[in-house]
């Protein structure tokens, strides 16, 4: 038996879909490893950058494009510059105070583990900071796509008929709008903001999700178990969320794992056009495209960000496959 079934004395215990899925997922080694690696990447980009001595923004034109492992000796002021790097005014104040208070070591030698970029900025710090942006964009845009797309598609497919026609026509209209013009319009109205990227990428990714889900649901809605649920007089929302959506989670998860890299690439494209992440901020997308330009002369500019990006996508794929299998009750084998 799988989990706490406690079948002995006819005792019945609750066993939810999620508990079961988790039990099944744990048996898939590769997927578990990949999920841990993903967690590690996220920690690396968030906690890691707090622990890092280097600022991703502080430039040093004397140290242009130094190879990985290069050591730099910092005086107290530079060290503090790296510590209070943010461009916000209050960081500037804190920097001034710390300088007066005599905080920090007199002279330290620190290593640029991944080398520096063409402006002498530490690549490790930039990779972490870029990862934060990329992961945020991917996470938020995918979540938006999932939330809106799955609900919208399920409602359209379940209701069917005219409602379905109208709802899907609306999706077609939105898909026909040129995405770039849409983003340019938004940025001219609101200025270039990071949340605008989340919003606009999420706003196009949900369309495909809605179509996928709707097609799946169209078939499901005529199934006898859905009719049985209707005969019980259950409210439509309950039928959709309890009987329909759990049965389309497999394809949804697979598509979601495909959405993440697509979103990261889209963000890189937007940033390249100056519509996305603004310098000195970076993202994996911008780091990789900068790195690719200088691949022959300074290969390490590409190596770090590209390696992390690839590991993330690789793990997402296997974790997604594992999740899909875990969601499928029929793969439950003892």
């Amino acid at each position, binding site marked *: 038996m799988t989990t706490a079934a406690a079948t002995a004395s006819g005792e019945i215990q*609750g066993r939810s879909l999620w508990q079961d899925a988790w039990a099944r997922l744990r048996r898939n080694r590769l997927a578990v490893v990949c999920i841990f690696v993903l967690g590690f990447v996220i920690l690396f980009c968030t906690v890691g950058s707090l622990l890092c001595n280097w600022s991703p923004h502080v430039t040093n034109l004397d140290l242009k494009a130094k190879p990985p492992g290069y050591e730099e000796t910092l005086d107290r002021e530079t060290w503090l510059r790296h510590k209070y790097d943010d461009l916000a005014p209050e960081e500037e104040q804190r920097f001034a105070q710390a300088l007066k208070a005599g905080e920090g070591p007199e002279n330290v030698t620190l290593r640029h583990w991944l080398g520096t970029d063409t402006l002498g900025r530490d690549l490790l710090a930039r990779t972490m900071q870029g990862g934060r942006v990329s992961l945020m964009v991917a996470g938020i845009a995918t979540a938006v796509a999932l939330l809106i797309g799955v609900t919208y598609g399920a409602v359209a497919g379940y209701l069917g008929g005219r409602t379905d026609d109208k709802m899907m026509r609306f999706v077609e209209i939105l898909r026909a709008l040129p995405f770039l013009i849409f983003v340019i319009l938004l940025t001219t109205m609101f200025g270039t903001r990071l949340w605008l990227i989340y919003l606009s990428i999420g706003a196009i990714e949900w369309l495909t999700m809605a179509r996928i889900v709707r097609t799946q649901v169209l078939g499901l809605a005529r199934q006898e178990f859905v009719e049985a649920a209707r005969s019980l007089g259950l409210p439509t929302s309950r039928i959709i969320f309890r009987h329909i959506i759990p049965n389309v989670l497999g394809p949804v998860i697979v598509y979601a794992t495909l959405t993440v890299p697509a979103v990261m690439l889209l963000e890189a494209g937007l940033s390249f056009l100056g519509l996305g992440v603004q310098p000195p901020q970076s993202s994996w997308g911008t780091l990789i495209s900068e790195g690719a330009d200088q691949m022959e002369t300074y290969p390490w500019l590409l190596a770090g960000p590209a390696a992390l990006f690839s590991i993330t996508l690789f793990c997402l794929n296997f974790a997604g496959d594992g999740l899909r299998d875990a969601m499928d009750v029929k793969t439950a084998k003892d």
Partner: protein
Amino acid sequence: MSALLQLEDLSVHFPKKRGLFSKSHEVLRAVDGVSLEIQRGEILGLVGESGCGKTTLTRAIMQLQPITAGRIQLEGRDLSHLTATELRLARLNFQMVFQDPYASLNPRLTIFSALAESITARTGPLEYEDIKQRVAALMERVGLSPSAALKYPHEFSGGQRQRIAIARALGPEPRLLLADEPVSALDVSIQSQIINLLLQLRCDLSLTMLFISHDLGVVRFIADRVAVMQNGKIVETGHTENVMDAPQHEYTRALLAAAPGLRRTASL
């Protein structure tokens, strides 16, 4: 005996689809002016060839299918006159057992969840302990061990699944069970078990049943009265023996003549 369910001139029409551009106004009369009474406590057999509208008729009674014309009365009360809340409660008096036990259970719900849902459909939210007891009682009633409650549908055989489907239909304590070919997807040996279960339930719960089948032998065994359907119309009704032994309508005679399994009745 008074009628539990009364159908008056019930019709369900589907628009016929012609070409891509030409919309025809012809309709398919899947159910065409059916008047039928089901008495309290009886089992009414409904027979007819494939496509004659049997499933459409049950779906219309279940309110799963909008009706084109006619009336459905539950104990003399017209369902179309009820308010939304009254209708929701009234339709819990009908429950359906579907033909295909592989499609009629949600693959993602354990038997426990499925049955709990059907029980609380009438009672509203209950204490967990209470639900547990009721689910166990329901499973025992249809001949399943309550220890299997946490399994998923795919872990059961076809016959067991049909028992689960019957248990779910009994959850809201219906008075009329609409069984749409409940045994035609099952092995012959399992068929008789399920039929005996239905007969048992009728005794225990004083259920009324509409039993649809292709198999005239099965209908003869289980039904008190029979209605014969052809092209959306009821062509003959009467007591099972009368209809089977002395059919009045030509179509009934043809059906009987074409039924190879009629001799099997004795073995059930």
